[in-house]
């Protein structure tokens, strides 16, 4: 164990006069689940985009410890290295599954794409791995040749997870993976995610506006508002004893079922 997996320092992004992200920094260790919570427009998704390098940062740095143990500044990686990293060691589960999946390609092809991307050229093995992963996210084997356009919202998110985890990444970014799903589907999906995270020892950054999701999945919480981190700490500590007035408001505004 040699320091954090991911080190984020002073990330900032400005859209015109508006600050979407202002001096955000944190460290993420292997196997750790960090929830980023806050209301809509608080800069959560921008933060995820900045970390993934999909949005160019105005200031700050993201350092990642590669598989060889060397921590590297992601901004200094070439495009080929960065893309290779994204499709092998990282995963990105998107809020809108149509952006994270190939909707016209079968479920098996969706899961197999990353394998083929890293040079797997044996159809039988690709298919066996795809079937194995579909089973792990509880998608029936007989749906393997159907495109996700015929899947329900919950199944699409499951498929996205399988597609991302097939190359055994060490870090997965999740942007509101459960939003728009009804509660029972949400509960099953969260169960799946929790099981896989524990089993594979994944480090996860999960963006959510749902405190229950944060409570269930995360070890630590980062509360954002107006692009700034206003409170951070262990999940139970932040949710049970919020210090910042905004966090207190946030926690108090959850309806008890």
């Amino acid at each position, binding site marked *: 164990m040699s320091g954090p997996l991911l080190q984020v320092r002073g990330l900032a992004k400005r859209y015109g006069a508006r600050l979407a992200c202002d001096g955000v920094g944190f460290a993420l260790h292997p196997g750790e689940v960090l929830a980023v919570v806050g209301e809509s427009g608080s800069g959560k998704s921008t933060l995820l985009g900045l970390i993934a390098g999909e949005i160019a940062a105005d200031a700050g740095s993201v350092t990642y410890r590669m598989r060889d143990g060397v921590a590297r500044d992601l901004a200094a990686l070439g495009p080929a290295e960065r893309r290779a990293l994204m499709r092998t060691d990282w995963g990105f589960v998107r809020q809108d599954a149509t952006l994270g999946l190939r909707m016209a390609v*079968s479920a098996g092809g969706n899961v197999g794409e990353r394998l*083929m*991307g890293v040079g797997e050229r044996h159809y039988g093995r690709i298919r066996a791995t795809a079937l194995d992963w579909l089973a792990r996210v509880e998608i029936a084997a007989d749906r393997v040749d159907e495109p996700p356009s015929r899947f329900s919202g919950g199944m699409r998110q499951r498929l996205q997870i399988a597609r991302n985890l097939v190359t055994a990444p060490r870090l997965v970014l999740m942007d509101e993976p459960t939003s728009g799903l009804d509660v029972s589907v949400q509960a099953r999906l969260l169960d799946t995610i929790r099981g896989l995270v524990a089993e594979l020892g994944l480090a996860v950054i999960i963006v959510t506006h749902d405190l229950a999701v944060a409570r269930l999945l995360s070890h630590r919480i980062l509360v954002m508002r107006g692009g700034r981190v206003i409170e951070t700490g262990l999940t139970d500590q932040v949710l049970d004893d919020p210090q910042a007035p905004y966090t207190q408001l946030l926690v108090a505004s959850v309806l008890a079922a």
Partner: protein
Amino acid sequence: MSAAAPLPEPGYNFAYLDEGTKRMIRRAILKAIAIPGYQVPFASREMPMPYGWGTGGVQVTAAVLGRSDVLKVIDQGADDTTNAVSIRRFFGRTAGVATTTHTSEATLIQTRHRIPETPLSEGQILVYQVPIPEPLRFLEPRETETRQLHALAEYGLMHVKLYEDIARHGHIATTYAYPVEVAGRYVMDPSPTPKFDNPKMDGCPALQLFGAGREKRIYAVPPHTRVRSLDFEDHPFRIQSFDRPCALCGAEAVYLDEVVLDDRGGRMFVCSDTDHCEGRRAEGHTGEMAE
């Protein structure tokens, strides 16, 4: 059908295009040859024919055609279909070059959808008409993204297409425009030739040029270049095979067209390459339906 009109039409530059345009196209061709399989953008001109009829191929041909060239034009293997006849006559009238239907006599062959059965030789140029030059187009519609994928040689996506074929049909069902890897680097669309012709591209002694007029791209395979059809280890690339010889000339291991003879199920299978078929019949070979 050799030696067409002796003089080009008055008022036209040799081979229709002006010399400045030819230079622009030749520069694109040189770059394409230097980077085998790479799609070079070029300033495609309006040609006096509709898109889809070979505007790209015609411009490439016009740019490389010389006065001493002998031109052959084929469409689906045939020398006598509308497209082939029109383009051959076009260059007969605007360049006054000799034309032929014999593959071995031609120095320049413009083709749509076939590679001649007669092996090509050094010094010959084969010009392909290409409708869609981007092999990744139907999987990734964004041109900005496909350029990235080519630049970084990220071709996993191409195998996704082959995977989908096997998942749906049990085998690789792509039969034409079958993707190839050129010189171990770029993945290329060989134009809608049947995959039967893919092996002919590998190590071919002739220069192969590809022109896409509507999409404004030129690419090339230099002579003696490795061209490998993509496949899976457990689903290797295979060409089509036919269970009978040509009904006219008896040729085997050639690409056959099915011709419907009547409305009672009568049909025959004949060489798609008309020149090859005629040549064999002239040598005395006959098939079961030769009269």
